[in-house]
């Protein structure tokens, strides 16, 4: 026996039951676990994004600290250099202003001057070590 596809009959009820079963199985065993997995993934993505944001903030702060430290170190280095130059210049002036008892020159006069200088700087003032000044 045959009929056309346009005839409505009890097949409708069977089709309805079959689809309701499919719907129930999909909703319970497929869609719900998938939604749960998708939500879990979204939470993980959000957490990772939040973590990345915090790391970026930390990095920015660390970079700022680094820049500030480097700038401070440069300033201090500059100050030290300035101080060194000033002291050096001052010493240079003092050295120039102080009259020198000898004059470094070449030849016999030069050697005499070096000897005098050596005696002036020597702790024993030119006397041999161990010699008593009273004797």
């Amino acid at each position: 026996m045959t009929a056309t596809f346009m005839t409505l009959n009890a097949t409708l009820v069977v089709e309805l039951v079959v689809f309701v079963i499919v719907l129930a199985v999909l909703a319970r065993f497929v869609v719900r676990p998938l939604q749960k997995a998708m939500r879990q993934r979204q939470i993980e993505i959000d957490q990772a994004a939040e973590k990345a944001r915090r790391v970026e903030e930390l990095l920015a702060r660390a970079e700022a600290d680094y820049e500030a430290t480097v700038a401070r170190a440069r300033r201090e280095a500059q100050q030290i250099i300035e101080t060194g130059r000033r002291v050096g210049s001052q010493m240079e002036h003092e050295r120039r202003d102080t009259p020198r008892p000898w004059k470094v020159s070449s030849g016999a006069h030069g050697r005499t001057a070096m000897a005098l200088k050596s005696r002036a700087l020597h702790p024993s003032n030119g006397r041999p070590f161990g010699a008593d000044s009273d004797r």
Partner: protein
Amino acid sequence: MTNPAAPLDLGTTHTATVAGFTFHVDTIVATVAAGIIVIAIGLYARRRVSSDRPTRAQLAWESVVSAAEGHTERSLGPGGRRIVPLAVALFVFILVATLLETIPSGHPHKSLPAPTGDLNLTAALALLVIGSVHAMAIRVRGLRGYLRHYLEPKPWLFPFRILEELVKPITLALRLFGNVFAGTIMVLLIFELIPPFLAPLPLAAWRLFSVFVAVMQAFTFTLLTVLYFQTAMEPDAAGSAAHPTPLTEGTRRTENP
């Protein structure tokens, strides 16, 4: 090629009569087959559901679920999540059921005809959808609000509102049935009017187009379902929203302090 003057066989189905009720055996077998396929691929994807290492099958299902979620939430708000399983099941089931036709299973009487090419399945789906829409409307509006919305915006439009509600399942069922059945007629025409040695070429082209038609019909049916739910749940003329939004909640509080 047959006699062009002979009437075209538009397709028949084997029937069985049980306790006075007639059943389309081919359609029922094809529907059960489609249901088993859908459940099997669903459970296959579900077997290794993972949030960090999804399989291809899981991703394919997720794309459908995600699209359904996005569409229902845009149309219905967060309350639309409740109809996501229905939307997903409708889309996948209609798609698989329609694609059954692309499996060569005999001609002209197929072992596995597209069950969506039988009015019984499309009518069953349409009745289920429209029934769910009305049930949801009663649940959200309350019975009084549901009945009152038939008198809006003007009470004299009541007969037209009733007519509109009656026409909805009919159009929903006939649209899907007509499109899929037209595909069946096209295949019959190709076999009847084109010489057998030339038939495979247009048939293959039509089968490819059938895949596109199947996707479009499944999408259209699902989209219309969501739209019917949206219509049932949207605010009526009196200002009472079907699904409470912050604005309407505030309005209610102001009216009834």
